């Protein structure tokens, strides 16, 4: 099974995190259903041209979070009950928001201005997603 995972070299985050996020996204969006086979560690390493050890780490973390299951000698599958614990995402969101507020504060922005900038960023993300799907629509 060929993965369609694409990693970005300019993304500053560690590679194993990028991979984890993309796997979770695919599960969240429904492309990979519970019980589906996912590429073996070595297969994915080959496809992405990323070291085996990084893929291993990503898979280990995903297993710990309950998103995937690895069967000895038989590869990995999406867990029947992928606990995509939202609290993982919530924790990260809080951390990032703290950082955003701190930077905004350094720049001397008011909290309204910071909120506006946040909304602009959300717009940008939506636009990019819709462009991909072939539409253009602005959400205010």
């Amino acid at each position, binding site marked *: 099974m060929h993965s369609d995972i694409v990693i970005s070299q300019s993304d500053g985050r560690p590679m194993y995190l990028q991979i984890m996020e993309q796997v979770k996204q695919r599960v969240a969006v429904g492309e990979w259903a519970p019980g589906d086979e996912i590429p073996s560690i*070595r297969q994915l*390493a*080959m496809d992405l*041209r990323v*070291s085996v050890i990084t893929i291993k*780490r990503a898979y280990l973390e995903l297993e710990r979070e309950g998103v995937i299951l690895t069967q000895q000698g038989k590869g990995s599958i999406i867990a029947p009950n992928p606990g995509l614990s939202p609290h993982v995402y919530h924790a990260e969101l809080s951390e990032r928001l703290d950082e955003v507020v701190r930077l905004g504060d350094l720049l001397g922005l008011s909290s309204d201005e910071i909120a506006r900038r946040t909304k602009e960023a959300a717009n940008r993300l939506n636009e990019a997603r819709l462009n991909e799907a072939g539409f253009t629509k602005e959400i205010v």
Partner: protein
Amino acid sequence: MSDFSVQFEGVSKRYTHFSLENIHLELPTGSIMGFIGANGAGKSTTIRILMGLVHQDTGTVRVLGHSMPGDQAAAKLDIGFVSEDMRLYGAATLKWHMDFMRPIYPRWDQTYAEELARRFDLKPQQKIKGLSHGQRVKSALLLALARRPRLLVLDEPTTGLDPVARMEVLSELMAVLADEDRTILFSSHNTLDVEQISDQITFIDRGRIIDSDDKEVFLDRWRRLRLVLPPDGVVPRLPGVVEVGGSGRLPVLTTNRFEPAMVSACNDLGATVQAVDTMTLEEIFVANVHSRRERLTA
């Protein structure tokens, strides 16, 4: 089958103006190790000792279970070696080289060789002396890969290649590792490539191995802490800080033993942690070398 494809123990080699001291190296079978060092650091010498081309003064070297340099002929049957200063025979064609290799290596895969020629955009009928540098590198790699070696030893395999060729070479290297029994050791200036595909990384500087570990451990251990000090503040003293940079009130600490507890420790000592930056392999290497050289001269 040994757990390690390559084992160096206490290896040293002394020349008039340079010496390799107490090299200890272990390369697990099935993994890929990136070897990073400045020019003249000893990468090539280490690799030559691995291949039995240079005899060590002290220490033992085992490659694929064979003792080097004594058993080098047997070992090299399973090794594919490409180095920067190696040349193919200019007066002959790539096809001649392929025909020359075929009867020598029992696992020579002619179909794969021809496929690689297509993928690398090489014309087997062309004489080597008429090829560009990049094409020569790819030709040498083709000859090393087509013999399906258990160990690939590459000295600067992507140096001088255009980005597309680099990508193809990296793909082929990763494809080699699809077989769990095959191992790769490569030295490179290109820290991006090393960072991306290596399982293990070894740093070498001035004839000594200064660090060797799993790549993920490196990337986890090293951080840059950007601090903001209060007007009379003092840079907090933390264990494992390798370098202190930045300006008076905005110090930047580089550490090789990062733990989340450090952030709270800094805050407790009165310094606000503004950011915790990860470091690229290149930054880690440079910081490692700098701090070591400073310690030696201090």
